[in-house]
């Protein structure tokens, strides 16, 4: 490659790039002049919260912008501009010298073709390989990314693979033509922490073996710290700060970076006093989905919760931790009698497990729930005030209109929103504000227990932290009891005083937060914690 200029080993450069989108509601500037570069063999991370424009830079560089998007500036591969070239010229690089893996392993592969078929495409297009040669290479690649039974899995369709396996297939595809640069766009965001750790280990290992550069886009500072040599911090379409990872983490130079670094949830929760009364007692709770076998029908039964006991005392926060499919959300809903379940549930001494919709209604006032998705949990055609007031209409129907408005205003103030906003509609609020509205809706009924189902998972870290603080304050002020369901161990550690770890519908381990986090008793919990808190050590171990 001597014929191309190779400034100081830089293989990839972005020079003052700007990305704008024409939307029906006007022009949106997603990237407002950003420059960055990647050296040979280097791992560079671009970190930023949602809407920072970090992904759009890479989409622009690879010619993948949505049709309403436009990019200006320059992107250079080995000194040659690739932003303003024809698609044919770009195609000589894409999939060969520069490859990419994406956030959504579920949808990034074509559901209509087999793994082999899709993996063979870049090989046959760029390497002009025969079908046989391609097949041999695919087998080699799938083995390289540690897919078990590679010869057999080649014939599978994407929907027959798990999320982690699909991401491995994507990595195999990315490595097919020995690229010089791999752009990874949030490749582990949709995966569980243990799978995330495995994928990151795999990437690190492959890099040290093959020697390609990696440009890693993420919102997760833990990954950046463990994985990257150098970092660019992005905010609102601009680079806030950049530098070597160690330096940036040790001595951040801008307020924004400092804020990001400080956004890790912190603090602990003390257990309720010794004599606190029991609120809820549940014995041997079981939930089964699906139907038994029948004519032309397979047995689709799935035991999502398999006999769990829960005891909850006034003022407690019970953290339920588990990966996707562990049954943690199902358990939460079963305890609130939102789905049919077996086993006993007692609330303040009353058995509520046999109750139907009507029978449960009087109890609903004391038992509230907050959901994960702040975009989906608010009715889009009702105003914020109507949403918050809904519970009052059910449980205190005789209330005077003025009193109701006053109660709504009070609840909104409690969650840190201006009551003047109550006539606005959900789509006019940001994600964090919406989650506050959802909390206000639960709070207005002055409940004793709130089940929080991943309430912070869809939020950026910095917003997450504010919501956690809010939940803490509300608990203190209103003597609330929480069941906090999450896959995020850091958040659970900060909020709960008692933790249950779930896997495959059963409790693997439980205990007071401090004890459990300090001395996990099972291999599963240990693996979970290592993946969540010690990514760096995990990667270092693997490399050694």
């Amino acid at each position: 490659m001597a014929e191309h200029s190779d400034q100081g080993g830089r293989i990839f450069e972005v020079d003052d790039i700007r990305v704008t989108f024409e939307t029906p509601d006007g022009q949106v500037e997603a990237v407002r002049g950003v420059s960055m570069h990647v050296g040979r063999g280097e791992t560079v991370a671009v970190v930023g919260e949602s809407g920072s424009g970090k992904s759009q830079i890479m989409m622009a560089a690879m010619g993948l912008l949505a049709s309403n998007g436009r990019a200006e500036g320059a992107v250079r591969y080995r000194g040659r501009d690739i932003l303003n070239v024809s698609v044919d010229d770009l195609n000589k690089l894409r999939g060969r010298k520069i490859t990419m893996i994406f956030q959504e392993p579920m949808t990034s592969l074509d559901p209509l073709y087999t793994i082999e078929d899709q993996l063979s495409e870049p090989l046959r297009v760029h390497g002009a390989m025969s079908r046989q040669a391609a097949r041999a290479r695919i087998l080699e690649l799938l083995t390289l990314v540690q897919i078990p039974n590679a010869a057999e899995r080649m014939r599978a369709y994407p929907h027959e693979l798990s999320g982690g396996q699909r991401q491995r297939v994507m990595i195999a595809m990315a490595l097919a033509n020995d690229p010089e640069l791999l752009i990874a766009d949030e490749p582990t965001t949709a995966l569980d922490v243990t799978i995330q750790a495995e994928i990151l280990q795999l990437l690190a290992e492959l890099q040290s073996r093959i020697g390609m550069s990696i440009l890693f886009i993420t919102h997760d500072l833990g990954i950046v710290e463990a994985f990257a040599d150098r970092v660019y911090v992005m905010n609102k379409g601009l680079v806030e700060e950049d530098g070597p990872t160690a330096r940036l983490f040790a001595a951040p130079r801008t307020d924004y970076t400092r804020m990001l670094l400080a956004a890790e949830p912190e603090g602990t929760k003390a257990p309720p006093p010794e004599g606190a009364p029991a609120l809820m007692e549940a014995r041997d709770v079981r939930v089964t989905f699906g139907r038994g076998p029948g004519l032309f029908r397979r047995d689709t039964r799935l035991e999502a919760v398999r006999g769990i006991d829960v005891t909850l005392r006034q003022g407690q926060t019970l953290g339920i931790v588990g990966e996707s499919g562990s049954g943690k959300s199902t358990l939460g809903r079963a305890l609130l009698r939102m789905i049919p379940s077996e086993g006993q549930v007692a609330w303040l001494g009353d058995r509520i497990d046999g109750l139907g919709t009507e029978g449960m209604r009087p109890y609903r006032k004391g038992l509230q729930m907050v959901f994960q998705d702040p975009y989906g949990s608010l009715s889009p055609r009702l105003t914020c005030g109507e949403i918050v007031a809904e519970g009052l209409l059910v449980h205190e129907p005789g209330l005077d209109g003025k009193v109701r408005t006053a109660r709504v205003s009070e609840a909104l103030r409690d969650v840190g929103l201006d009551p003047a906003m109550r006539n606005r509609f959900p789509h006019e609020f940001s994600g964090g504000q919406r989650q506050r509205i959802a909390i206000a809706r639960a709070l207005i009924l002055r409940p004793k227990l709130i089940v929080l189902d991943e309430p912070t998972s869809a939020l950026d870290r910095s917003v997450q932290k504010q919501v956690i603080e809010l939940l803490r304050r509300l608990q203190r002020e209103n003597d609330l009891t929480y069941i906090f369901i999450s896959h995020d161990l850091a958040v659970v550690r900060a909020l709960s005083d008692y933790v249950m770890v779930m896997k495959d519908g059963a409790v693997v381990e439980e205990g007071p937060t401090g004890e459990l986090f300090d001395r996990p008793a099972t291999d599963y919990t240990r693996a979970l914690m290592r993946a969540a808190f010690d990514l760096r050590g995990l990667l270092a171990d693997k490399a050694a």
Partner: protein
Amino acid sequence: MLSYALRRLFGAIPTIFIIITAAFFMMRIAPGGPFDQERTLEATVMENLNATFGLDLPLWQQYGMYLGNLFRGDMGPSFIYRDMRVQEILGEGLPVSVQLGLTALILALVVGAALGTLAALRQNSSTDYTVIAVATFGITVPNFVVAPVLSLVFAVMLNWLPAQGWGEARQMVLPVIALALPQVAIIARLVRGAMIEALRSDHVRTARAYGLPARMVVLKHALRAAILPAVSYLGPAAAALLTGSIVVEQVFNLPGIGRYFVQGALNRDYTLVMGTVVIVAVFVVVFNLIVDLLYALLDPRVRYD
């Protein structure tokens, strides 16, 4: 795949049965009878006629007899075309209608998919707008307008093609176009929408990110996903073509089965109407079965449902 096909097949049989039953009773409950027009008939002659055709028996018995005969392949005698069995009458027309319908369907699918793809690839260009305009025209202008206008322009004024008759390829051109046009339009719109969505989908982005040639991205990855809605529309499309063929056969004076339906219904020719209903039901159900299997063949995800 086999169990899927079997499941679909077993589902289809009761459907045909239900349709036949519903049509049979609906028609019989309606007032009027096949010999009403011949008012001059004496009561005894009328009774004789009714006895000959079994119309004096209780309704459920007639129904049982009809089903029994149908099972043996006999659709009964026509009440109006004396001395003809219904299967003989329809047997003559069926090949014409099937040929007309299938040609139109294939034409609609090919042209519709091509237009839709073209429009989606050049979204918001003049090509796109032209296709949208043509598609809107095809949907809004009914084939009972298109058929006579085509006949007027190309047969009467320009004298390029024959205005009626059946048997030569030249005679097929105008009826097939008139019949296919609305379906071309609907399929073009469907494919355009699905194609735009497919082109924005993550897996097409992957294909582009891996430098696959544009032709391959479009034809292999986007089109296969985009054609799926059109494939599932083929069932309703076939039904619409059957309806349309009534008009087209009338305008171009074709010896298909469409005319028997309206005539048969107007004349209370019970067996003839039932015959057309049976044929249509079997055809539509079998066709839907084929479409379902085709869909499953194109989309591996369905096979496992």
